[in-house]
Structure formats: structure tokens, C-alpha cells
């Protein structure tokens, strides 16, 4: 069978042919052994695949899997976290009146002083301290809530109530 015939035969099997093309393939099948063998082979492969999709299961708990999705759902509705520059700008806006009163020189003193003292920092900085621990965190700006989830490897059973 040539390539065009092979593809037409396959289209016949998949119900993608109508009218004259379909009648043409039916005629081949009546007359040609190679067409019948090819169709049978394609039919078996198709049947084997359709009923036997390989199964792959997630290897994590329901809660852990959902946690990341919940975080994604939440963050989709939240404003993005303010970066350092945004915080600096907020600080400058907030103190603009005092800066105007005190003069630029002293303003720089205040700015440097406050910056060194750590006023301009990220809202939330977390790190794991245990080698077997992973971490996921997210921020719900609307409700003023930060969640830090530490997970598995050696989950401490702090709150077992049973």
C-alpha cells in the first residue's frame, strides 16, 4: 500500500471518511489481502490503547497537593507583593511633609538612619532550618493573613489531638 492508501485506510477506521472515499476503501477491503491485514492491525492497536490508558498516580497527600492549588487560587485574587522600591516610595510619600520642613540635608540623615535600622524590608522572609523540611508560603492581603506551610520529610506531630 502506498502512503495515501495507508492514510485513507486509517481514516476509514477512525470514521473520518464519507461518500466516495469510504466506498473506495470498502472496495479495497473486499479485494486486497494487504488492506485487510493493515486494517486488522490498526484496529487491534486502537482497541488496545483505548481501553488501557497507562495509570500514573500522584505520590503526595491530598492536603499537600491542594495546598499549592489553594495558594494559586488565592494569589490570583491578590495584589502582588510590594517590592523594596515600592516600600521606599511609600516611606518617602509618608514622610514628605517632614522632609520639606526639615530640609533636604536632614532628610537624607533620616532616610539613611531609617534604612540602616531596617525599616525598609520585605514583608515576609522565611527559611527552613531543617534539612528534611520543605516550605511553601503565601500572603492573603485582603484578610491580612500570611501562611507558612512546612511539609513532610519529618513532619513534627505537634498537634495530634488523638
Amino acid at each position, binding site marked *: 500500500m502506498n502512503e495515501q492508501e495507508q492514510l485513507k485506510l486509517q481514516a476509514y477506521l477512525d470514521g473520518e471518511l464519507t461518500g466516495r472515499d469510504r466506498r473506495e476503501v470498502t472496495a479495497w477491503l473486499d479485494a486486497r489481502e494487504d488492506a485487510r491485514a493493515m486494517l486488522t492491525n490498526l484496529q487491534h492497536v486502537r482497541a488496545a490503547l483505548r481501553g488501557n490508558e497507562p495509570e500514573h498516580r500522584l505520590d503526595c497527600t491530598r492536603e499537600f497537593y491542594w495546598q499549592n492549588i489553594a495558594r494559586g487560587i488565592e494569589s490570583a485574587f491578590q495584589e502582588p507583593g510590594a517590592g523594596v522600591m515600592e516600600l521606599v516610595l511609600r516611606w518617602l510619600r509618608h514622610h514628605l511633609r517632614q522632609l520639606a520642613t526639615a530640609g533636604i540635608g536632614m532628610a537624607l540623615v533620616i532616610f539613611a538612619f531609617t534604612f540602616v535600622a531596617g525599616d525598609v524590608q520585605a514583608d515576609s522572609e522565611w527559611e*527552613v532550618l531543617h534539612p528534611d*523540611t520543605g516550605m511553601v508560603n503565601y500572603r492573603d492581603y485582603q484578610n491580612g493573613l500570611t*501562611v507558612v506551610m512546612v511539609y513532610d520529610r519529618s513532619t*513534627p506531630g505537634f*498537634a495530634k489531638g488523638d
Partner: protein
Amino acid sequence: MRLGFLHRTTFVAAFCLGVAFSTNSAFAGDDKKLEVLLIWGTNQEKSSDPAHKKVDSATSRDFKKVYKWENYFVINRKNAGVEARKKTEFKMSDQCRLEVKHLGDDRFEVWLWGKDAEAVKEEAVCKGKQSLPKGERLILMGLNENESGWFVLIRHKE
């Protein structure tokens, strides 16, 4: 009252330093009142310990938005003032301890300690610096082996 140039400069400098100190209360030395709750999330209707009461309805509603458990029980509750630049300890259970330090303004440094798999040795789990203005909450959470969840809720009290 008329001020000479020197006096004016001194006044402005003093004013500015005053502003600087007032905007960075790390140096003010005031206590910050924190409430810490150890919470157990479960589908069980009751805790085996009758002393464990359910969390308030608002907290329960917030938790249920994100977590699948139906019930949340308070295992322990601690209130304490956290001082500037000094660690305050919150021992929530035999296996869960928290250390909190006030970094200034509404920022805190938090260390979470837990027991190892054999529940013998205490190990640091995580630490973080967190901005927690009044009314806001920080939740540290994880899963128990029995598919329930544990939560440490830290609230900056009004």
C-alpha cells in the same frame, strides 16, 4: 521668638531625629502583645481531650476557605508581650515551641522548634522575619501523619 541660624539648625536636627526615632520604634522599647494558638485541624467531630475547644467561628470560616478539614480545635493558647530585641518563648506543647523577637515597628522574628521523628531531640524547623501589623495573623502549618493538620496561629492583638 526669634532664633539665630545656629539655634534654627539645632532645632531642625532635633526635630528630625525625633521624627526618625518615632518612625522606628525598634528603639522605643515598647512591648507588643501577641496571642499564639496551637490548633488541630481534623474531620473528627470531637477531640479526645474535652479541654480542646473549637476555634471561634470567624477563624474557622477563614480556615475552611483554604483547608479541607471540617473542625479546628484549640490545643493551647498563650498571650505574652514581646520585647524589642529580646526573644520571648511560647511553649505550645511538648513538641512545639516558638521563639519570637520584636524587630521594631510591627516586624517580628519567629523561630519554630519541633521534636525529631522519635520525639526526643528538639530541632529548629524554620525561622522568618514577618511584618505583622495589629490585627494581622501569621499561620505556620503542617500535616500530621494521620492526615490531620497542625497550625500555629500568631495574632498581633489590637
